[in-house]
């Protein structure tokens, strides 16, 4: 069952006197109980995509088109009060830096209580016992005592657990996790990823996981969408995308991981850098760095090439080789 359906999402920011779409015609489906990973490097638009779904795009950014359906609700058409009821209750979000997303002068437990009481008529006492219970569920030791702790008294891993407790307090249908473990050490990251997986299996919450780390994708995701310069360039199941990467960008990303390389041999490089959004090409935006670039790549939007069941890449070079073979 498709829980979250995103079609042709377009979010723009003013740059150099005109509005540039930093999220451009992005479409994907998130199924109930699944984890969809949105992968890409910095500046590719994955965080803006997440904020668009939450209707939290900071000004002067603007959602200019597309459709986001959460069940039967059309998220982009809701009024502000109605959106406030959906946000947190049906779709909630955790951020990269738990240090900056918790209020430093409010006790952790009170922040969770606040979230609960915003959505439900609950007494402080009832909400408190719910919060303590949630703290226990997300593996915070001594939840009763930690309820009264200030954020600075907790480690980064514990703060992220508080964020998860807050995000899950309303049992949302969809959890958007924007780089939830990037700021954490690897042993702590392993604990948080395991926790997210366990909670997801218990609650059947669908997760949109935003990350730059293909290792994290491999650990967590059922399906993967690879983003480059505001567009999705390839999507498919985790196994299919990681074992048969098809778009030259996906291939380049995987080949650049040092763990896959042989010591003493040079690493695969993707030449150059992501161009600034004002210079994005009309066609395939990877054309400036692509080792397989063709003459028309920069001018025409890349066609979809089907690689397998539910695995699609958007690439001119692949399209040519496919039609070439079939002739």
């Amino acid at each position, binding site marked *: 069952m498709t829980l979250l359906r995103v079609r042709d999402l377009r979010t723009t920011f003013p740059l150099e006197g005109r509005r540039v779409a930093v999220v451009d015609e992005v479409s994907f489906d998130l199924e109930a109980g699944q984890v969809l990973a949105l992968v890409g490097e910095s500046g590719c638009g994955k965080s803006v995509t997440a904020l668009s779904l939450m209707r939290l795009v900071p000004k002067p950014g603007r959602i200019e088109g597309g459709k986001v359906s959460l069940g039967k609700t059309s998220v982009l058409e809701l009024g502000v009060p109605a959106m406030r009821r959906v946000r947190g209750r049906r779709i909630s979000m955790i951020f990269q830096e738990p240090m900056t997303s918790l209020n430093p002068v409010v006790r952790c437990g009170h922040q969770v209580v606040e979230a609960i009481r915003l959505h439900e008529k609950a007494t402080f006492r009832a909400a408190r016992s719910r919060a303590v219970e949630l703290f226990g569920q997300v593996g915070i*030791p001594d939840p009763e005592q930690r309820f009264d702790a200030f954020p600075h008294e907790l480690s980064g891993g514990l703060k992220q657990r508080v964020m998860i407790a807050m995000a899950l307090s309303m049992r949302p249908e969809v959890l958007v996790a924007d780089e939830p473990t990037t700021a954490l050490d690897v042993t702590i990251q392993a*604990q948080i990823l395991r926790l997210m997986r366990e909670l997801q299996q218990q609650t059947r919450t669908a997760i949109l996981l935003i990350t730059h780390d293909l290792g994290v994708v491999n650990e967590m995701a059922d399906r993967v969408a690879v983003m480059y310069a505001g567009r999705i360039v390839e999507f498919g199941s985790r196994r299919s995308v*990681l074992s048969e990467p098809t778009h030259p960008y996906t291939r380049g990303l995987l080949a650049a991981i040092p*763990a896959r390389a042989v010591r003493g041999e040079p690493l695969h490089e*993707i030449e150059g850098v992501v161009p600034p959004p004002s210079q994005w090409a009309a066609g395939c935006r990877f054309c400036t760095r692509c080792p397989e670039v063709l003459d028309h790549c920069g001018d025409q939007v890349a066609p979809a090439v089907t690689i397998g069941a539910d695995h699609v890449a958007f690439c001119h070079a692949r399209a040519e080789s496919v039609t070439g073979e079939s002739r």
Partner: protein
Amino acid sequence: MTAPLLRVSGLRTWFPIRRGVWQKTVGWVRAVDGVDLEVNEGETVALVGESGCGKTTVGRSITRLIEPCAGSVTFAGQELTKLTPRQLRTARRHIQMVFQDPATSLNPRMRVRDILAEGLEAFGIGSGVSERTDRVAELLKRVRLEPEHMMRFPHEFSGGQRQRIGIARALSVEPRLIVLDEAVSALDVSIQAQILNLLSRLQQEDGLAYLFITHDLSVVRYLARRVSVMYLGQIVEEAETEALFAQPQHPYTRGLLAAAPSADPEHPNIEARVLGDVPSPADPPKGCRFHTRCPEAFDRCSVEPPPVVQLGSRKVRCLLHEPAERDPGVSSESGSSGVAPGREAT
């Protein structure tokens, strides 16, 4: 065998905790507590650990950017900890550092030309402005930047380009050792690959030695010949890279390797073996510092500080690898009941 280029032994850097009106010292943060390291000419040694383990303090204590409290640092036969400030300046020419965040380690008000020429001027390399400018152009070419861009300011470059400037600055004074403190950690993977390739090329061309300080095991595996794993101010395991990854011996090393996600679709395999958080270095646990998080800890671990055990070319700081293990009859007093479960786990 020739003496190593850099030998660190018993390095200890503690920071005082001061309280009250008179700033009385009430305790010590034991950031680095007895670290031994060796780096040979032309080789790459990695120092790995999580945040707060003291790895950055080791790097800075070697160059005396932070004064160590005890221990010795010998570089090319010279004892650095005993040098006068003037002597130290001369010696530092041969040890350079590259920092994690190129945005904050380059002066935003200086042009790239001046950033790169500063070291040349300080050490009197090149005579006159025009010769130094030529050298700067040469340096920029070596790190694959356009010499025409030397009059730009750091903010006009991307993150990867700024890190190239940081590397060029380190190279400018022709060092023999570069301490790279999380030099690629802030970069995207495609840019990280470019910088790692640049570093290996420079190493081949100049015979540079690198001390590579990082938390990222995949980079270590690709780059380093030897690895030291650090936990709460101490090195818990040191080994050749291949051996360390194939057969980690210390429970912390095993935990780190098990927790590192891999992008191999056949092996999504992380395990959270090491639980909880790192204790405070101001009050490290008694006995083995890792025992509070160790999945293989037994009763002696919380009492006895583990010895450093030499296993071939590898060193491990763990009671599980005590030599007495091979001869169970000898250590009868220590109580065999506590040792037994540990042995099974190895």
